[in-house]
């Protein structure tokens, strides 16, 4: 080989490629020494001599793709295929896994953590490409605990110094709603329950946007909100047949798990819709409740922006909105009194647009902190310390009780 090969015996650089019974060989033209047979990987030191060596001493070992890393990379590819991700995602996820594996903390981690790491790499890839994959899905697929997953995920993000964008809510709505089995009649789905996918998707999206605007999404897991919104959207498209269906039954028909917080999200969303309904004159008359408001969700969503602005006020209420409402209230007062409603009834004054945790009364009153005048150097009286010490009699009693307890536990079982 003209490039850099030296014969180990005579040191000459005149190596010729020759073949011996169709096996390629490198032979020194000076002394005839066979430098190498076949083309295999070599150690660094033998690279010059192009000698054949065992794998364990070869350069292949220097690439340091250990067995466990190889296993992990295979798992990453498998997970990407199971999730039916686009092919480019696979390469990115594999690259993240390899990058993570460079760190000694990851290399020395338990197998459970390495397994979870696979999921973290896939999740980060999906998040960066706006693919709506939830942590719950990955944990279910990997049979992993969410606590372990969250710890590994936070550690990985910090370790690699990554910018991971938030979950894209709109995409999640589309993916999640598409997984509902309500778009075709089947034994579990009565005819009246079947719904058009596009209509349901668009209405669910509008409801989720409404929830986001009215502080129902911040700080909460996104999925239960979407479940509640999908349920309301589905109900409102044909209320006459579907009002009798409960949230649990809906999820069962749609073949989707019912997340536990979904029912409270549903109540919150209905409360928001009710407050919006109170701003519409023709709905205010009807005295809607949580069930009847569902029939009017279409109207409410159509005008949702103005209604939200009208129905709610920020903590710092603008005087204009107040006056606007009072003006409207005047008109409606006249209208309502003509219908025989009690005098002085106005549309509900704007409620505060706040997250539900701020609207609920505090569970316990925070005690005002007392100003303490402790200096840290006060005298400590003996009596105060002695109250924490056992008297000799108490020590004896305690020891006796301990011995008795141990004797009881160490009694051998009768054969």
């Amino acid at each position, binding site marked *: 080989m003209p490039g850099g090969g030296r014969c180990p015996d005579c040191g000459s650089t005149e190596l010729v490629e020759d073949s011996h019974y169709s096996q390629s060989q490198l032979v020194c033209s000076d002394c005839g020494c066979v430098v190498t047979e076949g083309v295999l990987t070599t150690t660094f030191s033998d690279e010059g001599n192009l000698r054949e060596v065992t794998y364990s001493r070869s350069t292949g070992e220097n690439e340091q793709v250990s067995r466990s890393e190889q296993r992990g990379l295979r798992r990453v590819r498998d997970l990407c295929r199971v999730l039916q991700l686009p092919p480019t995602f696979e390469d990115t996820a594999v690259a993240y896994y390899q990058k993570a594996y460079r760190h000694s903390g990851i290399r020395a981690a338990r197998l459970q953590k390495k397994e979870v790491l696979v999921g973290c790499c896939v999740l980060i890839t999906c998040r960066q490409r706006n693919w709506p994959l939830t942590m719950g899905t990955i944990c279910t697929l990997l049979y992993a605990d969410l606590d372990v997953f969250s710890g590994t995920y936070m550690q990985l993000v910090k370790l690699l110094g990554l910018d991971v964008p938030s979950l894209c809510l709109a995409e999640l709505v589309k993916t999640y709603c598409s997984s509902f089995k309500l778009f075709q009649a089947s034994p579990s789905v009565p005819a009246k329950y079947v719904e058009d996918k596009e209509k349901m998707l668009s209405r669910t999206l509008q409801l989720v946007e409404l929830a986001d*605007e009215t502080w129902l999404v911040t*700080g*909460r897991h996104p999925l239960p909100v979407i479940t509640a919104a999908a349920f309301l959207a589905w109900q409102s498209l044909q209320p006459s047949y579907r009002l009798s269906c409960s949230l649990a039954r809906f999820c069962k028909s749609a073949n989707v798990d019912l997340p536990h917080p979904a029912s409270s999200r549903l109540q919150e969303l209905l409360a928001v819709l009710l407050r919006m309904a109170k701003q519409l004159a023709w709905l205010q008359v009807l005295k809607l409740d949580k069930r009847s408001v569902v029939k009017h969700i279409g109207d409410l969503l159509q005008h949702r922006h103005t209604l939200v602005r009208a129905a709610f006020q920020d903590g710092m209420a603008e005087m204009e909105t107040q006056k606007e409402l009072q003006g409207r209230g005047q008109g409606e007062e006249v209208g309502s009194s003509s219908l025989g409603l009690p005098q002085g009834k106005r549309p509900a004054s704007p409620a505060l647009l706040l997250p539900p*945790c701020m609207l609920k009364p505090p569970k316990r009153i925070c005690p005002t902190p007392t100003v303490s005048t402790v200096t840290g150097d006060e005298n400590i009286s003996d009596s*105060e*310390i002695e109250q924490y010490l056992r008297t000799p009699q108490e020590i004896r009693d305690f*020891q006796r009780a301990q011995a008795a307890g141990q004797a009881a536990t160490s009694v051998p079982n009768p054969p």
Partner: protein
Amino acid sequence: MPSAPSRAPRPLAYWVIPQLPTADPLPMDEETETYLELYLDQCAVQDDFVPPRSPLFSPVVPYVYTPNPSNPETTFNSHLESKETSGNFSSVDLSFLPDELTQENKDQAVIRSKHETEENSETQSQQSRLPLPSGQDVGPGSDSSSLSNSRSHLHPGDANSIQSAPAKPNCNSSPLASITPMTPMTPVSECCGIVPQLQNIVSTVNLACKLDLKKIALHAKNAEYNPKRFAAVIMRIREPRTTALIFSSGKMVCTGAKSEEQSRLAARKYARVVQKLGFPARFLDFKIQNMVGSCDVRFSIRLEGLVLTHQQFSSYEPELFPGLIYRMVKPRIVLLIFVSGKVVLTGAKERSEIYEAFENIYPILKGFRKA
């Protein structure tokens, strides 16, 4: 508030000001002006009254007024005596004096507003705190020695003016702590009146002797020891309500106190208990390892917006935790920010770090007040 940039700094005794007779150029009916301003107006007339010696103005020398009045003080006092007001101080606002000297307790807010104006003028002058002159000018019955003691505590609290102010530990500093706004004690936040409250202090101390944990668990009522679960004795005391982990090497961790002094007192009590049990326990290397504070900004916060603009510091995963984790770089504090406006600050070694971190985060949060 008019500032006084051109006036030479001089020792002040602003509790005297309102009582000066009408012959004084002071406008007596100006109640809106603070005492500081009133006094400085007066001083503008007496410009030849500059004290020759001014230890106050050098940035290094701590602002400590010696008990024996120096020239400026005697001249000042004599000047005041010429306009002697007699001992009648009933109308004087003595609210900023320690409780033992005043007759009534006024609002802290009064003190704070005074401090604010004080600090405003301070940026121009080097002068930080006011000495109380000798005892004769103070309210009746006050001990001049106690005053001079307390005077030595009027340290410059402003971190930017004088850094190396050594504290006088043997005097009763706590009453005057309310007057001298050392940044650790009463932070005057420019942005709002919200002060984070300390909720937990974690500290460690070395008792410097090997301990027999079984013996401790046997002889102490308030100890629990389960070697299979954890290799330390868990001891609790009632006052201050804290918990300690005591290891066989002699090291101890004390948690649950609400202030640094309480943590130190609690650690000393635990060391005393260990001593009483017969071990030669000492109290070495007491160090506060972590302080946790919390407060409420009282408005809702759009966490999604905050994570978008402060991506490099924030981590917001609603699937995992409802709050946003903000890792502030300077000071190195971790803040948990919730949608309700509650903020938890942790990772501090000093109280001032918590206050500083909150001062830094409050304007950022205000920016996310509306949707």
